């Protein structure tokens, strides 16, 4: 049941270049909270439902976690619908770890703080409008609700 989210998250650095950056571009600040201060958070952003389903990120970042809160900033994004997904690579091995039955053992999260039911959040749950100028997504990572 977790296969799709694992496939989606293991390649956090796979990025499809976006050629849509225009003058009236937007910037996205992803504010992370609820972090254990270790490892790194791997963040991907997606510019369409198709890309989200295919795991083709428009941009990705790795943010080293030193404190309970961290930030990542993405710039030059064309206004439109986006979704963010991330996992906290707590042990720093560069992979999204699972237990032997395929259940994630590292925290993962989505924009809008969306949560799936036994799997990743859907595009409709995670998608948000990115406007020209400054945009913010505050995402609580791990620790339940």
């Amino acid at each position, binding site marked *: 049941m977790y296969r799709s989210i694992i496939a989606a998250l293991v390649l956090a650095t796979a990025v499809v270049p976006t050629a849509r950056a225009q003058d009236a571009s937007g910037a996205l600040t992803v504010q992370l909270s609820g972090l254990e201060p270790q490892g790194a958070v791997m963040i991907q952003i997606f510019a369409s439902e198709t890309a989200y389903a295919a795991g083709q990120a428009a941009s990705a970042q790795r943010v080293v976690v030193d404190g309970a809160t961290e930030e990542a900033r993405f710039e030059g994004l064309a206004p439109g619908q986006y979704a963010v997904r991330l996992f906290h690579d707590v042990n720093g091995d560069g992979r999204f770890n699972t*237990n*032997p*039955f395929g*259940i994630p*053992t590292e925290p*993962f999260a989505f924009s809008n703080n969306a949560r799936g*039911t036994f799997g990743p959040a859907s595009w409709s*749950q995670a998608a948000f409008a990115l406007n020209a100028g400054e945009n913010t997504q505050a995402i609580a990572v791990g620790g*339940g*609700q």
Partner: protein
Amino acid sequence: MIARRELLAGAAAVGALAAAPAAFASESPWGLGVENAPVDGYAPAAMRRVHGRAPSGLEGSLYRNGPGWFRYGSSSTGHWFDGDGFIQRFAIADGQARHSGKFADTLKRRIEQQRQEIVFPGFGTRGVRGAPVQSPDDINAANTSVMIAGGELWALWEGGSPTRMNPETLDTIGIRPFREDLAAMPFTAHPKVEPNGRIWNIGAYGQRVIIWRLAANGVLEDAQVIDVGSRSYLHDWAVTERHLIIPLQPWVHDRMTAPMVDGYTWHGDQPFRILVLDKNDYSNRRTYELPAMFYFHTGDAWEDSDGTIRFDLCASPNAHFVTEQARTMLQQDSGETPSAELALAVLHPDGRAELQRSGIHGEFPQTDRRRQGLARDLVVIANDREVSTLGLMNWRTGASDSYSFGAGQMVQEHLFVPKPGASGERESWLVGVTLNERERATEVHVFDAASISDGPVVIWRSRYAAPLGFHGTWRGA
């Protein structure tokens, strides 16, 4: 078979239930047993001794777990097995008993209390659309049994981790993985503890099973995943000195649907398989077959010098109770299912298997835990359906003993508690709980295992009527 409802009605007609609430007749016969416990549980309170005297030397605590919260207004769990884990303690000291209770403080319970509705999917509960579930432990009800390990009280479920609690205060410590890479792995409510303290358990997911081996202090020694070749419902199992016994019944999870119980199919034309593994080499295995039957619980297992393996289990003709009655009993519309029959599965060295039926019915089989995996004679079962009885079977002599509680008592699991300084099985007390519907009170009953038909040697009555529970453990003082 006498239906529970008819039995109660009959008792009322002769006046035994004259004081029962008028609403009782229109409610489920299980009504009092599946009502929400108070949100903050029960503060420790003295129980009233209503019969007999406390036997000298009986000192310790009976801990019990079971679903204790079922509904928020009209928002109800869809199955008895999905209620929040409510842990009770019956502490016996100086001839007196005290009763307390507290809910396991799970993520599921915190969110549902906050929202005042049933949110999460469960074994037989659909949950709300889009319920936030990222791990089996997000829906962990911690509601099935308890064990003591490493000075902690663990509230056990079967689909996820143990929930660690303080055995004195019943406060929840939380979930802590045995190892980080084994977080959220299933750990059944039926661990087997060897006489030397070593703990064995399993957890099933599809047709794969994790085999846990823990030291007596609860620290992980080993965990391995094996393929058992069947998606059978796996609630309980058995362990001998040399072997692990995994029954694979023909109630099989063959569809991914919600709720989970709807994904199981009864295959009455298929055998009941029993997988036997060498404790020292899980690849060394044998499979035995018996005719189709359904079971929840085994008693315990042992093997003879010639390699014959024996284990008791409570066998039903099919899965009707879990698929039907355990649902409807929450909606106050109980169907009737006969209780299971105690039987002994015998696995011969030549590969043959046979089932020896006892003729006595009930569930929650218990044995002298000092003899886990070793030869023994006795097993005790509780019948809370047709007639409320406690039954004690002696497999060596073929004799059985029983005690009938009469109408208006729902009898629950009874545990063997060794008498101080004694080593024989019969030199034990049987300590358990009933829900006295007439008095609307939970009671602790203590029997002498040597003569249960003589009736309880002491009964303590609580000021609380607690929901029915599943399983417990005894911690000596």
